[in-house]
């Protein structure tokens, strides 16, 4: 029963995030209308470096529109069962995140409304994404799949902030919370909560597992056989962690 709940919980989360990502992408299309200015841009004016800022916004939106669904795809069992596909998905998405999403997001962070506290929140999120992505790639290369899954959950967790944060802004607006306060709460809440949830998910099963079983699992995941027989080795261990 517990496993079933966890399985459907994971699926539900992935589906919700996919829908949220698609909706954000749809709502971001006006950013590519070069004739008009969307409200998000108008309220930022005047910008110190308007051209750079607008370019960063478009790069960020494009990178997010591609990398978030691809990250979600990489988290599915279907992708993890196909090691080759999973690796290529990871390489492409990792490159996109590290070289487009994070740098453009960092540029945008400095003009975020809400002042330094919001800027720091966005930069912290970017740091977690970049750090976890690098760590996740390194751990995949040394076949430390447990660490890889944990790091990639942190990446996905911070990406999910985009959806959760916007949902919170809508909810807090409906509850008549001041938009300035709502914006800060809707950023910091999901950023910190994502870290906490990922750490909880990553640590909980390991502490509850019998030591012998855990050691066997690490040995199996580290074994060259796991790479030679991806269909046998990958689905169970990675998918069980939801990684």
């Amino acid at each position, binding site marked *: 029963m517990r496993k079933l709940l966890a399985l459907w919980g994971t699926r539900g989360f992935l589906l919700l995030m996919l829908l949220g990502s698609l909706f954000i992408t749809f*709502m971001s299309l006006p950013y590519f209308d070069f004739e008009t200015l*969307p*409200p998000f841009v*108008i309220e930022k*004016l005047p910008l110190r470096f308007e051209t750079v800022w607008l370019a960063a916004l478009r790069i960020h939106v494009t990178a997010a529109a591609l990398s978030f669904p691809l990250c979600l795809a990489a988290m599915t069992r279907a992708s993890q069962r196909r090691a080759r596909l999973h690796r290529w998905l990871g390489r492409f998405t990792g490159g996109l995140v590290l070289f487009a999403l994070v740098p453009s997001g960092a540029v945008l962070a400095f003009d975020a409304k809400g002042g330094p506290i919001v800027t720091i929140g966005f930069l912290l999120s970017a740091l977690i994404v970049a750090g976890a992505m690098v760590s996740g790639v390194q751990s995949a290369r040394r076949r430390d799949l447990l660490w890889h899954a944990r790091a990639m959950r942190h990446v996905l967790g911070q990406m999910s902030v985009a959806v959760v944060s*916007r949902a919170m802004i*809508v909810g807090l607006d409906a509850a008549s919370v001041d938009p300035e306060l709502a914006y800060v709460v809707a950023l910091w809440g999901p950023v910190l909560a994502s870290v906490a949830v990922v750490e909880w998910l990553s640590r909980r099963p390991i502490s509850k597992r019998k030591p012998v079983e855990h050691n066997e699992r690490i040995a199996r995941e580290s074994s060259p056989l796991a790479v030679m027989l991806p269909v046998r080795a990958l689905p169970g261990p990675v998918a069980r962690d939801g990684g």
Partner: protein
Amino acid sequence: MAADPSLVEWAEHRVQVGIVQPLAERGGSRFSRSRPPPHERRVRITRAALSRDKQGREFVPFSVDVRFGAGDWQRDDIVGCAYRASGNLFIQRGEAYFPAALLLGKKVEALPGACQAAATRS
């Protein structure tokens, strides 16, 4: 210069029609990081007399206040001026004044000297 009720009424109406109503109709983009649209807007004419800019054109300065939910009014969310002869509306962004069409997404340039009184008249 004495306060002119008809001027105040005219300016309020002009800002209502030119800014407040179009913004209300436009609403805000949901599920976006842009600020949610305020629940209420009100127009204040901040000087109930005509001022003249350097070109000698007469204008009336105004402010639009906003309110979210049951919160207090937040003053000066939009600051600008309405030109008496043309009815043109300008809004302030930073130090410059732009045509109010900027608020509706039009790409427009700032007009130097707009809404800036040349000299105080009494």
